[in-house]
């Protein structure tokens, strides 16, 4: 029966978990990058993740756009000030960025105005 339980456990595993694992592998395969859970504050880091959330805030001066990226280990906010649109910033797109890690709203890790590179969605299948 343990075999059966294991099988049920394996097949019934939420797709989210499987995806997180897959994203972790994907991020780890990009040379020179740090996992988000290991990123220290104030480090100048190269980080890769998938855009999971896009936030536009019309209040802040000339506006701001934020993307929250996920690499299977944690969430990081990437913030661009002074603009309300960035081409290519789409949900599910892969993002490799390099910048100094700081702290943003609600104590989330945040990188301000980083250099970045967009990749197609790193999906499996």
């Amino acid at each position, binding site marked *: 029966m343990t075999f059966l339980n294991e*099988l*049920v*456990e394996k*097949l*019934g595993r*939420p*797709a*989210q978990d*499987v*995806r997180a694992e897959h994203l972790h592998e994907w991020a780890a395969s990009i040379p020179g990058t740090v996992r988000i859970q290991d990123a220290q504050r104030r480090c100048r880091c190269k980080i890769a993740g998938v*855009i*999971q*959330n*896009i*936030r*536009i*805030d*019309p*209040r802040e001066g000339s*506006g701001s756009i934020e993307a929250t990226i996920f690499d299977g280990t944690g*969430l990081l906010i990437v913030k661009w000030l002074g603009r*309300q*649109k960035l081409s290519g910033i*789409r*949900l*599910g797109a892969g993002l490799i960025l390099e910048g100094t890690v700081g702290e943003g709203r*609600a104590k989330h890790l945040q990188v301000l105005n980083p250099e970045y590179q967009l990749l197609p*969605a*790193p*999906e*499996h*299948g």
Partner: protein
Amino acid sequence: MGKAPAALKRVMLGRPMSSGELGHTLLPKGIALPVFASDALSSMAYATQEILLVLALVGVSALSLVVPIALAVAALLAIVIVSYRQIVRAYPGGGGAYVVAYENLGFTAGLAVGAALLLDYILTVSVSITAGGDAIVSAVPSLAEHKVALTLGLIALVTFANLRGSKESGRIFAVPTYGFVVAIYILIVTGLVKCVGGCPQAESAGEHLEAESMLTAFILLKAFAAGTTALTGVEAIAEGVPVFRFPQSKNAAATLGILGVLSISMFIGVSWLTDQTNVVYTEEATRTVVAQVANAVFGGGPMFYVIQVLTALILILAANTAYTGFPVLASILAKDKMMPRQFRSRGDRLVFSNGIVILAVAASILVVVFDADLNKLIQLYLVGVFLSFTLAQAGTVMRWRRTREPGWQRSALINAFGGSVTGIVLVVVILTKFETGAWIIIVATPVVMYLMRAVYTHYTYVGDQLALPERKPLDRRPGNAHFVILVGRVDAAAARAVGYARSTRSVDVSALTFDAANHGSWRRLAPDIPLETLTVKTHDALLARLRERRASLPQNDFLTVITPEVLKGKGLLEIIRHPGLHRLKAKLVKESDIQVLDIPLVATDIDPAVDQAHEPARHHVVVFISAVHNAVLEAIEYAETLRPTDIRAVSFGLDPDETEQLGDRWLEARVPHPLEIEESPYRDLGESAVRYIKRFAPDGVNRVVTVVIPEFIVRKRRHQVLHGQTALIVKRRMLFESGVVVVSVPYHL
């Protein structure tokens, strides 16, 4: 979902796929041909037989007319193929008959083609799978008794395969389709060779036929109309142009040409062999015409079985084309507001699951009603096919006249000729088949059109109601918040409700109860909030009371009813436990302009040390939205009256292009709050909403999250199906999240 059911679903349907996996693979001609042509080629399995069936009414002597009639049908096929090659050129973006007709001939023509095609796809499934069942029965006659069950089983199989979806489908198509073509050619060539020394005779050759009718022009037309089933499926390539490799139009046109050559030669070949082997076919025959011919030519043996198997397979694949076409058409119609919007959502496996299921159910019903009898089902078939042929070609002529591209006159002439011919055939089909079944489609098509129109009218009305420019609510001063707490018992949930109401700094908070015994403990909990006992202890009295209160307040103020509730456990049973309360809440939201704010508290989460009407220190309000319109602005306005720490709108992104537009609309609406678009990779909004809310780590005491759900309230109950149950699904998932308060803001349409 529990582990075991999740595992079962996983085994049956496969791993859920994330939206990013929706890729477009472009097909080379060699793969595109079997993918799109299986429907057209498969009709070779029954087209000759249908001609023979009509001629049999006149007697054996008339049977050799099958060849000239087949030649006439082949000529028609050639005309349609040449004409469709022009359509492919005109519509490199995929010229589904619906798109062409809607664009060039207007709304009603679009409706007609949409309805005709939907019915036609359903018939394609019933006809093809029934014919596939016939091929199997021809090989294994003992299955004849279980024909209906066999056919339904095959439908179920194809349905499951489609719910799983598959990227490999192109290659799966190739083997049986090419196999079928090769097998039929072998049959024809072997037949030709054997006929040199006198043709072998079919098992039914020489059977006596009772002449029921004279050879009249009507019978000839009827036989011709029956033979035109050979044309079904030709339009598939025109619809699929976007998945061809570049240059797309050229490749699609070439594929159409190849299809034409294959279809015509196979059809004429089989019809000729039928005549030479003297097949006699009546409704009582257990073996199909192709099976009889194959048996005569090969004298039984393995090749006979190979042909039966390949015939069954290609017919099942033909049904499969409908499984691709129907859901896509339904989603396009839904996008054009002609069908309920649920047809636009992709399921776990990225296929349009709703469309697939509806198609399977409808086709199964037809199979049962017509007793899996191909000859009855096929009578219904051709009206939709020729209606869409005709309107698609007519539409393309209009397009040529408009665009006047170089050489347009020639193309327009070809399409005009093709359209006229198919138009005439449409009339012939209707006249000759009306009594035997076509009338069903002639009645059903307008009914479906009427329904689609009703859906369109409703969505358009809703769209107008919600359109932004009508009001700019954020220019005006938001109204005040008024709260009424419904007190069942003075418990931890009631204490949270008091803390919540106080945190909004509202000047008007009161409480209502049915039970006078609550007064003592209420005074200890909230001496500042007056509690009133209702004397008439019915929900109707309460409802009347609240409506009266609502009516006494200014229009732009909000009256919120807070319903604190201690839930015993986390099961869904909890929702059913208080049917009265839930009906009351539904009535409040639906019938009056009152917000209902749920403060649920799972018993195990109660902490007696802190659950003492504590005001939360941080209060985040999240407004779930799917578009920017008046109902959303109203919900935002409402959120502001709660005086929370912060407000944000959150939308779960399903389609990246739409989400980009949403951002633009948000900036245009000048709402002074951020908008977040959150990924929902598995398109399960409940799941994504829970994951999103968990990031706030709400504890219900110091940190509270209020989820505001703008809800459309439709006037007529039957319209509710047109608006999906997203709000309900999200609400149910939120109920058991500790520290999450859910409020519905009704917007009356």
